[in-house]
């Protein structure tokens, strides 16, 4: 395998970007094909996102802005309250309740919201199908979805899990695109700001959640897309999460976890020798290194191989123990970290919260209602924002919010495209002039 390094750099980034792209593409297609879907209902639906103010096209601009700001405020407060509630529940170890709640909400989203989207698709394309078959299919679809998202003890292929995660994102996003225009924009901005606060500020709910989850070596009690096909899940692995959080209860995290595939209790020596002779190791290491994205500046972050013996490893060690101390998770953790540091092979996967999927897609879906040009511009802006976030993630190596940069860029590009670029491009290309 003397392949060039081009093949190994950026695998993880693409692993996150491609599902996001697929999600956005499908949402755009749904929005396009179901434009009658939102208008046919006539009555604007009242959801949590427009509790205060119902936008009507006849309102004046100032009324719209005021009302949509109020809507966004109420929605964000609602989300914050729910997230705090979840954190409290998690703090007091109501894990089972949380899991069942997640299952229920996944069931609800897939079954009811997804069902109504399917029905409108069936109507739109007049697909001949009878009610009973449709119901059975929908029920099966939903049950498999719930099982695959929260499978414990059942070996579910990670691909299925990923597919269902993306589907959940699509369904929720398709619903959010029914919101009126101004409310959507203010809501997106407000959520991006909330995301920033909730993940980075001390005492932010998502920050607490991440720290709790990492101190317990636990799965996050949230819907999170995992980019990496899990090699071997070690429940005791020292996966302290580096996490990019976001908004909403069903949300929103980009996480970098580390798992040590080798069981640390096996005793160091045998492990080490085995690894060193095993032909698998080089590829594993390569993969591991390659996971540290784009450029060489931060490639060091995963460089854990003791042969290379640079100061990076020491940094790492300090890092681990310091974090252990700060989180107060007992000396045990950090000591173990120190012991196994040499033979520990880390594989990191990037995790992206479902909320990010949803709100990226909402932005693109909203752009799709204007023109295709804005869709492309927003897509590029969001993807590059995500790229920036991932680069920042590997620099700072802590939980980062994935929404702010992308949403800011997306909104900026939307309005730039709409106001500046469109007249220019339409003007020149309808004259058949290009350059």
């Amino acid at each position, binding site marked *: 395998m003397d392949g*060039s*390094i081009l093949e190994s750099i950026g695998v993880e980034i693409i692993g996150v970007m491609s599902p996001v792209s697929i999600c956005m593409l499908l949402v755009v297609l749904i929005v396009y094909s179901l434009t009658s879907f939102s208008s046919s209902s006539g009555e604007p639906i009242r959801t949590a996102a427009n509790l205060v103010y119902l936008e009507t096209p006849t309102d004046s601009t100032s009324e719209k802005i005021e009302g949509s700001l109020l809507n966004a405020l109420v929605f964000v407060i609602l989300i914050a309250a729910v997230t705090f509630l979840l954190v409290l529940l998690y703090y007091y170890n109501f894990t089972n309740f949380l899991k069942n709640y997640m299952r229920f909400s996944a069931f609800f989203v897939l079954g009811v919201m997804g069902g109504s989207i399917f029905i409108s698709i069936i109507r739109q394309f007049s697909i001949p199908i009878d009610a009973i078959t449709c119901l059975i299919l929908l029920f099966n679809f939903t049950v498999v979805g719930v099982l695959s998202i929260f499978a414990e003890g059942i070996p579910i292929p990670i691909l299925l899990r990923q597919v269902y995660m993306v589907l959940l994102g699509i369904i929720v996003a398709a619903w959010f695109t029914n919101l009126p225009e101004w409310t959507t924009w203010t809501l997106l901005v407000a959520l991006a700001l909330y995301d920033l606060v909730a993940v980075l500020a001390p005492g932010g709910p998502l920050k607490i959640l991440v720290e709790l989850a990492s101190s317990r070596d636990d799965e996050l009690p949230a819907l999170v897309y995992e980019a990496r096909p899990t090699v071997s899940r070690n429940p005791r692995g020292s996966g302290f999460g580096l996490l990019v959080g976001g908004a909403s209860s069903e949300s929103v995290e980009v996480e970098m976890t580390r798992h040590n595939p080798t069981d640390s209790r096996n005793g160091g020596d045998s492990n080490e020798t085995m690894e060193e002779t095993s032909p698998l190791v080089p590829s594993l290491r390569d993969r591991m290194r390659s996971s540290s994205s*784009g*450029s060489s500046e931060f490639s060091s972050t995963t460089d854990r191989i003791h042969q290379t013996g640079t100061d990076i490893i020491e940094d790492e060690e300090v890092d681990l123990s310091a974090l252990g101390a700060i989180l107060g998770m007992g000396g045990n953790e950090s000591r173990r970290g120190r012991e196994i540091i040499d033979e520990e092979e880390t594989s990191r996967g990037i995790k992206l919260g479902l909320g990010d999927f949803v709100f990226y897609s909402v932005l693109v879906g909203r752009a799709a209602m204007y023109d295709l040009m804005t869709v492309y511009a927003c897509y590029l802006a969001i993807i590059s924002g995500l790229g920036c976030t991932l680069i920042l993630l590997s620099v700072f190596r802590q939980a980062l919010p994935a929404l702010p940069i992308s949403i800011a860029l997306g909104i900026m*590009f939307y309005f730039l495209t709409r106001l500046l*670029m469109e007249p*220019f491009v339409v003007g020149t290309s*309808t004259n058949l*002039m290009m*350059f």
Partner: protein
Amino acid sequence: MTLAAGIGYVLLALGPSLTLFVTVISTKPFLILTLLSSTLVWLISLIVLSGVWRVFLPLKTTAWWPYAILILTSIAFQEALRLVLWRGYQKLEDMLDAFADRVAKPRLYLTDKMQIALAGGLGHGLAHAVFFCISLLTPSFGPATFYVDKCSYGPFFLISAIISLAFVTIHTFSMVIAFNGYAEGNKTDQMVVPFFHLIAGTLTLVNLVSGGCIVGIPLLYVVALSTLAYCGNMVWRRFTETQIRLTPQNQS
């Protein structure tokens, strides 16, 4: 039927680049990232240009010279941007080489460098096709089509798809030529790229004349094909040179 026609237009404009993407780019994640960032750069350049020209648009006159100025400034701006891209690429290449040294992998091969240039060029080309052709195609999926007065030989969508295919080709391969030219310090390679771009841009001015597209489009394709031929010739030359250089080393 219109749906089929719309998809046909899309494939006409983007078919070759799609093939390139699937066969060359998509297997290497880094190239995908290069492609995306180069698309973004092109989009930003377009936004800047349209921000400058927004004041004067829409042009009320039927005279050709404002359009000529528009095209000339745009091309000048984009060629300047190519130089900026080249600077960025040099930094990137250094970083990649350093990274390759660290993980004990071979440095960038010649083909790798060319592939990066190809991905960058394809990004430009894709962005061009997307913004000038595909994004205007939305009405073509609907129940009607649209003819332009000055070129009524075919639907507007078909003609713009054909033109943008030529431009995708020019953009894609001129990036390869330009990067190679900068790397070798070859003046002809460096100068030929703005030349092709300029010729292609000015040829679209012919479309302003009524019925001019019947002359303009074949000439545009001549430019596109000569870009392609020039690029192929240059790549062939580079490869034979490096092979000659490599063989004695292997024997000794």
